């Protein structure tokens, strides 16, 4: 399986995701944001980091890069797209995912391991997880507070487009385990066709017992499946 990681000035999780992908047997290529063509790939990853120093709004400037037109074309033709953290913010800025990521409710940058629950395990990104499986996974963001309009939120729920929600270690979902004020504890969503996933938590940081756990591995093995 071939993957491409887009690199922006300020991306800082691009190498982490590349290491995770290669470990999971992806043939990965890094592509600089000024490129105007994309190598043929099954998966395009928009990595985490702070593209353009979060100027204007997180992801706003990266969302207008030259390579993004190609990413949009690929997404529309069905290519799998994964946006992690700043990548999720960039995907909302391009319009590939609806809604937006606001500043964390407590105004603090949050870097910690939290729990999320898998809400749809019947997609190309999540099929190796069990339904309602609880994962312990790292978040590191200042703008992770997902917001969208009422109509879209209803659609996310009725069409099963919520990928992950923040929960406690037992899987309960409430305000106490919502780290950033995100609407309905949303941690990750799909587009209508479920070929695009945007998520604030970092699965690429959870692929090795030595440094964390392996709760992120199944996201990558789902894609290979």
């Amino acid at each position, binding site marked *: 399986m071939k993957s491409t990681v887009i690199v922006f000035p300020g991306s800082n999780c691009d190498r982490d995701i590349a290491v995770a992908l290669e470990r999971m047997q992806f043939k990965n290529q890094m592509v600089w944001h000024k490129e105007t063509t994309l190598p043929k790939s099954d998966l395009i990853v928009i990595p985490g980091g702070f593209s353009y120093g979060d100027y*204007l*709004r997180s992801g*706003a400037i990266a969302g*207008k890069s030259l390579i993004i037109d190609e990413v949009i074309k690929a997404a529309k033709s069905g290519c799998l797209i994964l946006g992690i953290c700043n990548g999720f913010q960039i995907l909302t*800025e391009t319009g590939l995912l*609806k*809604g*937006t990521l*606001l*500043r*964390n*409710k*407590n*105004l603090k940058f949050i870097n910690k391991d939290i729990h999320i629950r898998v809400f749809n395990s019947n997609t190309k990104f999540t099929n190796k997880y069990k339904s309602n499986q609880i994962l312990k996974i790292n978040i590191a963001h200042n703008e992770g*507070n997902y*917001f*969208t*309009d009422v109509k879209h939120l209803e659609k996310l729920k009725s069409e099963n487009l919520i990928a992950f929600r923040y929960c406690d270690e037992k899987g309960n979902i409430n305000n106490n385990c919502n780290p950033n*004020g995100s609407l309905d504890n949303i941690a990750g969503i799909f587009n209508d066709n479920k070929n695009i996933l945007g998520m604030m938590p970092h699965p690429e940081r959870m692929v090795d017992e030595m440094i964390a756990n392996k709760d992120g591995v199944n996201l990558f093995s789902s894609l290979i499946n």
Partner: protein
Amino acid sequence: MKFSVTVTLKKDVLDPQGKVVQNTLINMGMDYLKNIRQGKHFEIEVDEENQLEAEKKIDEMCKKLLVNLIIENYKITKI
């Protein structure tokens, strides 16, 4: 021609920064303060003499980049 663009959060969108500023001012004794919403301000100069055309160009800038229409409103004023 020069314009100012004021970008504000829509009414229903939570503004934690505005809230913190508001609470601080109230704590400083300004308890007559009713509400604060924090926004952004741009000053933009364009090479266009016709005001209507210039406003159209600024409007395009707002819609395409400066403003996130999901959560923000904007107002263009000639300066």
